[in-house]
């Protein structure tokens, strides 16, 4: 940047004034005290930024164009491609909610330095959403089995697990705008995007999917700026001592909620959606979330009174088991999935036992039984083996079977005469502190209470274009695929576990 442009850049940030004739009414109220001055975390002129991002876009789209001609997608591991069907729409929703969040934050912060940073972040999030849509377009046209790719965004609002992702990403743009920064920039961007967008591309490449790796790495190259926005914002807040306790409370809330979503679903996708696993999720979590985020980022802020998340040890305990349990649940409800699931085999069993000692005794019998029931000729579903459907946590929207079925921490809490299921002490604490944010969320089992499973599948669009075959299947390699008639013949009725 030349000196003239630098001076101009600084000048643009001083286009600000104080109201003298009216008292401004903030569009979004905040409980935090906001100092007027901050620090520009962005430090790039918008035209330089545009040039840089355009070049990155060109590279990514160029790769996708070449990948089509080289028939790249045919080399990707089908198991991995299937698991991306739910992952990518979830990611796109996160980007979209972040766009809205940035707008809200810009409106709420009377601080030109940070507004500059969040304006650029908003553009980044739009770019990411566009890249992910391009990638999905590529998958729809080039995947061996495109069923599910075409309805991903719609299914994300209908599938039971997807409710969890919606609940998490709503934190980006609801409630106190400064808490949105804690949720978006501090916890999700700083603690979790490295696992999502740096570690996961390694899994993608190991499983033959270079397209996904290319897009994710292009996205991740912007995330450092978003972390800088979060750091700049939090340093601004820490200039006011009164902000420290409410900041710590917000960090506790969003760390636990993000742990529930990311550690369960990213852990599931990266291990159960892969045949080649370059690392264990638990190890990646220790690296990025504990040692980098807590041991690095939070540690630097500790002299200002910021505490590590108070449920870090509880999260660490759950990370060893939670995503394996979620894999069981998603395996058991496979007819509702808009992707094909897969049964684990001996090589998977060995890897899991090696990386999670004790896994075989707890989970292997389930997967052996799962394989036995995969043939439609058997005419029985894993759901029928369960005593009932698990209640869904009112806060994180995950099934209340965590960390494991045999030692789950589920609890029922009454509020104003109504019972709510909660999966853990952490979610119970969140519910007690912010009941209005969660009490009105609808539950999947509640919506379909008394329905036949076949009717639910039809209602959420889980049928292929032939009108009979299910999109969701229990295995990738099957002689005959399950149809809606097979499900109807079983006659499984959805029963809301919280119904009286």
């Amino acid at each position, binding site marked *: 940047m030349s000196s003239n442009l630098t001076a101009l850049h600084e000048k643009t940030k001083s286009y600000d004034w104080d109201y003298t004739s009216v008292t401004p009414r903030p569009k979004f109220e905040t409980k935090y005290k906001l100092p007027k001055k901050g620090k520009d975390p962005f430090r790039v002129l918008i035209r330089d930024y545009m040039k840089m991002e355009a070049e990155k876009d060109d590279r990514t789209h160029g790769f996708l164009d070449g990948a089509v001609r080289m028939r790249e997608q045919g080399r990707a591991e089908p198991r991995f491609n299937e698991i991306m069907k739910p992952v990518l729409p979830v990611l796109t929703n996160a980007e979209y909610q972040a766009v809205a969040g940035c707008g809200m934050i810009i409106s709420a912060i009377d601080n030109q330095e940070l507004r500059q940073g969040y304006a650029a972040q908003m553009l980044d999030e739009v770019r990411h959403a566009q890249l992910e849509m391009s990638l999905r377009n590529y998958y729809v046209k080039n995947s061996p089995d495109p069923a599910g790719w075409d309805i991903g965004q719609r299914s994300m609002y209908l599938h039971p697990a997807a409710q969890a992702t919606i609940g998490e990403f709503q934190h980006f743009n609801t409630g106190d705008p400064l808490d949105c920064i804690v949720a978006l920039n501090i916890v999700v961007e700083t603690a979790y995007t490295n696992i999502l967008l740096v570690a996961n591309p390694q899994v993608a490449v190991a499983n033959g999917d270079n397209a996904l790796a290319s897009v994710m790495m292009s996205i991740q190259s912007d995330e450092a700026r978003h972390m800088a926005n979060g750091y700049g914002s939090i340093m601004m807040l820490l200039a006011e001592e009164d902000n420290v306790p409410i900041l710590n409370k917000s960090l506790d809330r969003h760390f636990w909620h993000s742990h529930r979503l990311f550690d369960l679903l990213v852990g599931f996708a990266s291990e159960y959606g892969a045949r080649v696993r370059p690392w264990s999720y638990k190890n990646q979590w220790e690296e990025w979330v504990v*040692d980098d985020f807590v041991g690095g980022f939070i540690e630097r802020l500790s002299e200002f009174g910021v505490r590590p998340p108070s449920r870090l040890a509880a999260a660490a305990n759950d990370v060893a088991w939670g995503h394996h349990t979620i894999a069981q649940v998603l395996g058991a409800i496979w007819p509702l999935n808009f992707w094909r699931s897969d049964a684990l085999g001996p090589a998977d069993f060995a890897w899991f036992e090696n990386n999670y000692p004790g896994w075989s005794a707890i989970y292997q019998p389930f997967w052996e039984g799962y394989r036995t029931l995969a043939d439609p000729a058997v005419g029985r579903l894993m759901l029928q083996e369960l005593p009932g459907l698990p209640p869904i946590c009112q806060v994180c929207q995950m099934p209340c079977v965590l960390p494991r079925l045999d030692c789950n921490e589920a609890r029922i809490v009454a509020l104003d005469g109504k019972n709510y299921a909660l999966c853990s002490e952490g979610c119970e604490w969140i519910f007690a502190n912010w009941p209005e944010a969660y009490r009105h969320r609808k539950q999947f089992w509640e919506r379909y209470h008394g329905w036949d499973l076949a009717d639910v599948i039809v209602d959420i669009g889980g049928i292929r274009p032939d009108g009979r075959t299910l999109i969701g299947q229990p295995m990738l390699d099957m002689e005959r695929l399950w149809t809606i008639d097979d499900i109807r013949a079983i006659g499984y009725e959805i029963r809301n576990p919280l119904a009286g």
Partner: protein
Amino acid sequence: MPRITIEPFAHSYECEDAESVLEGALRHNLLLRYGCKHGGCGTCKVRLVDGDVDEHGSSFALTDEDRAEDLILACASVPLEDCVVDVSPTELSEDEFHSGDTSRPYDTVVESVETLTTDIAAVRLRIIGDRMPFVAGQFVNVEIPGSRLVRTFSLANCPADDDRIELIVKLYPDGAFSQFLRSDAVPGTGVRVHGPYGQLKMRLSHRPVLMIAGGSGLAPLLSMLRDCATQGFDRPVTVFFGARTEADLYLVEEITSIGERLRGFAFHPVLSQSWGPDWPGGTGLVTDAIARWSPTLAHDVYLCGPPPMIDAAVPMLTAAGVRPRNIYFDAFTPAAQTVPA
């Protein structure tokens, strides 16, 4: 003159001929982390991303793994051409980088020299003037009065007591600092100290803590323990303290007393050379004692002791399940330093 670009801050400066990467940064009022300034402590390990440097002086501060990852010592590397250096391994923030060097000399006077064993003494200094804020685990360089020699010692006192300095010193028959302590270090004697330096510190995590000390290496771990007790540390702490004989153990009562203020504390003194029939503690090498104590580990581990102890402990710990990143230590530095310029 070669130009050094510091990443991830995208900031560059020029080095004069024969000037090290570190010296050039400090001359431009920029901070790179450093300690001994002579290639001994490893505090200034940075990654050479591009360019070439002349690495002078002997150094055991860089392991083979460090060299394989292109790490160099900023204090002992003179650029031969334009270089790009990544300081991420030192966990330096951009604010710290631009703030320049905040370590400085402190004038102190001897308060006491207490003999702890036949060859280990506790040296207590009182700082004159400003207090010296530091983090438990850091070290200082001490000028030996009447010479231009400097010795490096970890701070043993609690960071809350930042108006004084406590050192644990191994006494050598012909050591220059040992001679000073034996002959001249009467209370009130002036001693100049530079610091604080070093990155050894307690890390935030959820893991239990394992501390392993050998010989005079208890100092930084004692500082950490004292700090833990003051701060109300809430993770389990286990301390292994290796010595040759029971007479070589020191400050055992204080460690036990600190442990009573900590949750889930355990203390294991281990003797390697000889022990009486009633010795209740561990025996043999401290690494073997740890392996017997628990064959699998998932701890944050802090070590301080002679290089052979650290060399033996690191592979044993990783084999038992400790993540390499969660093993923290400062190696002892050789005594070949002179007064900082």
